[in-house]
């Protein structure tokens, strides 16, 4: 037997075995379900969380007027959902940049008990009508900061391109710990 043909046979045998052991391909419906944003999968839960994060707004309205003179930014209402617990807090946007179809954002949470989580799924909710805008992964960076780097397109792009960190942000955040997803 030639060595070339022996290797080829071995590869074929390995491929056949891998195909036999591989799990079945997921069904189309399941893939569609995975692709859907969580607020469509669990609309009631989203509605509850959105209502709750919406109620935080009045708490920082007064502080906002004070802080605007000091270049300290406007706190963004945030609801942290972690391990079945919900924590109302504020996020301070440290960096925002909308460019070339991408949104880059950094924020820091005001109060988060214990060690900061490695990542959140951040859902941006419209400040006015509690409409979900987008969802992206926020990853822990230096100094307890979280960073988001995601595709960003559509009607909001033009408005958000002009945003400064010192402006009032047109969104609120629902931050779900990765373990709570699904």
């Amino acid at each position, binding site marked *: 037997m030639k060595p070339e043909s022996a290797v080829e046979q071995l590869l074929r045998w390995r491929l056949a075995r891998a195909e036999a052991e591989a799990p079945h391909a997921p069904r189309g419906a399941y893939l569609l379900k995975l692709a859907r944003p969580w607020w469509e999968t669990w609309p009631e839960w989203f509605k509850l969380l959105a209502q709750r994060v919406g109620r935080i707004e009045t708490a920082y309205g007064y502080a906002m007027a004070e802080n605007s003179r000091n270049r300290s930014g406007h706190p963004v209402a945030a609801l942290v959902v972690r391990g079945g617990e919900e924590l109302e807090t504020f996020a*301070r946007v440290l960096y925002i940049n909308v460019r070339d179809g991408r949104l880059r954002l950094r924020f820091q949470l005001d109060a988060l008990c214990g060690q900061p989580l490695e990542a959140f799924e951040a859902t941006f909710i419209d400040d006015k009508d509690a409409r979900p805008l987008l969802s992206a992964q926020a990853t822990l960076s230096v100094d307890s900061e979280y960073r988001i780097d995601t595709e960003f397109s559509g009607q909001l792009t033009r408005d958000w391109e002009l945003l400064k960190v010192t402006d009032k942000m047109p969104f609120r955040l629902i931050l779900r710990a990765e373990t709570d997803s699904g």
Partner: protein
Amino acid sequence: MSFVWFWTFWHWSKESFREGSLLRSPLHGIGGHWDEWYRHEASESDHEAIAKTGRSEASQRQFISWLLLHWAGETELRANRQAHRFVLGQIAHLEPFKHWAAFEKYRASYGIGGISAVVLAEGSPGKPEDVRAVEALALTADPTASAIVAEGFQADSIELETPRSAVASMLGGKGLLVFLTLWLASGKRAYPRWLEIVLSLGWVAVAGLILYLAAGPDPGEGLIFLCGTLFALWSGLILVAATQAATQTIRAWQQGRKWCARLEQSQVRLRMDGGLTIKGGSAGLPFCLNALHSLYRANSHADRRSWLWERLFHKLRGESQAWAATGSITAEGFLKPVMLEAKLRACLQSEGIKHVLTPRQHGGGRKAVYRLADARGASPKQTAPTPPCSVKVRLGFAAEEPCLRVHPCRHVAQALMRLGEFNSKRQLALNFFAVATSVAMLIALRDLKAILLPPPSPMVVAPSSPLPDYLWVSLDTMHPDQFLVVLESSYWLNRRAELSPRVGAHGPPRAEIHLQRSEAASTTDQEDGTVWIERRYQFLGREFAPGRHIGRYDVSYLNRIGHE
């Protein structure tokens, strides 16, 4: 130009901050800014240049040197002498610097040292690891963050704000008053050694002169010289002491006020590694002391005109590694008791800690250290080679004295006195001596004035005595106690009389001499005789020999004055 990529990053950071993309200033947000720039903004050529710099440790060190010497000097950070350390400490944890060997020491600390805090881990009976290095940096204020920031640990804001308030009090409030009072009472002075000896001898001389004048032999003609010398010496010593005290107090106050104003415009960053969540306020004292030190370090040498602060922080700079502290602190700087035994045990076992500042409380002090050292069954530092420390032979025990000194304090000001080694028993004793001597001098001041600046010679005035067996000598003077009247006669007994104060509402002071005929009278003339007015010298109740005559009157004149 070397390391252009860092300039590129820095300008991106500044521009982004200016245009509103970044919230934090380039300095305060440098960690996050670098992370963002390196991930998304740096060009391919920047990445290549950075990688080239990181290829060898030599080029990494070159970059650090450039950052410290050139970059920091060319940016607006040059005013703050600690900013570049903060920059190095921040970026040392980031890509790609966290893989660079030259950044190793900046990852662990800012390299500025500080007084350690004794913070017990949960359930710890007091181990060496519980003595934790604390570093403090003062940067310009960050409007997006607190005025005092914890790095490497978590604490309630009140646990950090209270030490900061205590710092403000120590720089420009009641705390500073307490510190200055303690220093005035028992603190070392800024004199050279020879002057200190001269001043001590001066005070001894003053006390000696006072004793000599009060109880020694009558100096006679030398009285004025001795009194003049005493007054000049005492005045000189008081002048030197007051000038020194006033100068140092005013300078310390001015410097303190200046730093207090800077504290208001600063962000103090306290770093203590370990990721602990602090429960309780016993780290308040080391936080306060380190924050105070950070303000000193942040400012340039040109600002430093106070010997008091300079000495304190000079000592701290050199020896802070040997100090640990524990104590809950109030905003006014007072220390409250804490759990002490386990902390002292931790200090005893910790290498390098020679002094510990604690609140003054039951269960602290040297006895507690001896007890804990004995409980360990051996000298606490014998496990590792340590520099020789004071070993005192104690008869009957043959025990080695622990190398840990406990300094109990009621107030941060006392801690500063200890840290700056201001406490001086010699100065305290000298101050007591000087105060006692000065009190005696103040009491004797009127007598000295009468000797050195005598009042003008008085004139005899009416009335004269209406009674034949009395001679009145009325003098026109405001100081009747400083004159004597002496009668010398061949008919009457010679007498020396003191002047009584004013008689009646308007009468002048007068001496009333009861005339008694001398048995050995050599004349029959009842108006024979002369009255002399003499100066009277006293010192602290002691009467000296009469002074020179300053007036002479005939008895006949005195009998008729006012009747003519």
